[in-house]
């Protein structure tokens, strides 16, 4: 499993806009580069990133992004979010070779 770092400002004020940051370890191989033997390496990138906000049994997509080969290795995503209520944020990256990873973090507003 790849390593990921999620950063959420601690205890944001209710209804304030906060920045959520998500960094993940991934080679983001473009599919265009030759390896040491001159053979072109197969593309291996993350295709999609999604962040969902869940309260109880209700869940909503709050941010998503499509990734392409020009995005660097170990991609970093930051996006603003209005912190309306307590809940849980789940982050999912999916990509080539069946890559999928989910991380969750709690959002606690004051």
């Amino acid at each position: 499993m790849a390593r990921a770092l999620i950063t959420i400002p601690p205890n944001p004020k209710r209804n304030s806009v906060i920045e959520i940051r998500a960094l993940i370890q991934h080679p983001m191989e473009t599919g265009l580069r030759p390896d040491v033997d001159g053979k072109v390496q197969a593309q291996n990138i993350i295709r999609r990133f999604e962040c969902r906000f869940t309260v109880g049994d209700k869940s909503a997509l709050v941010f998503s992004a499509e990734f392409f080969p020009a995005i660097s290795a170990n991609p970093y995503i930051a996006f603003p979010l209005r912190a309306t209520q307590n809940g849980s944020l789940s982050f999912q990256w999916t990509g080539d070779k069946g890559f999928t990873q989910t991380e969750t973090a709690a959002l606690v507003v004051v």
Partner: protein
Amino acid sequence: MKFVVAVVAFGTISINANAAEKRKSGYDIMSPSTQALQNDDSQNPAMLWVEDGKALWNRATGDTKKSCVNCHGDAAKSMRGVAARYPAFDQATKRPINLQQRINICQKNHQRSTPFASESAEMLGIESYVAMQSRGLPIAPPRDAKLKTSRERGGKLFQQRIGQLDLSCADCHDNNAGKKLAGATIPEAHPTAYPLYRLEWQGVGSLQRRLRNCISGVRAEPYAYGAQEFIELELYLASRAAGMLVETPGVRP
């Protein structure tokens, strides 16, 4: 006030801490956007390696089923300042060793596990984690008389012209530092932030990887990882950068 506290906590205004410092770290000459990556641990991709290293620090392994934490305890305390002292003289093998070699010796003698290969994700992870504990401390090469000859040999290697381009380290990094080599500014070659995340590498690499880059850049044959010549060069570079502050885990272009 909050802003000041945050910056100090990340410890990366370090470079400007000493106003009289004339030497420049690679950090000082890189673009503000690259500096921003290093300034903030939540953006710094090298932190992914540090997290790997932290997991390894706590992982019991080898025949003795011991982890680093069993002997050394909390790395934040026990490893504070350690990386700033390396390379150091190893009494058992009677030669200078760098931090990676120290880690491997520990693995062999105390964990009885297979040492990590040079430049493996594991080695770079654990080295980053250990070295980060010295962040903000001045580089403090040991005043060990046994290191003197090796350090001097390193100094000679630094001055030695090599390769088809017939250039020494000093030709660029002493005599032409601050000028341009193609699009890049030539740094003064102070190893303040290793292991570091290089954008060109799209990953973390060691000081020896950087040295090998330079050596093949002047069309000479690089020494193997862990070669005695590299340890001597590291010794010399550490003495040249003595007093500058450790930035690990750094980011460079």
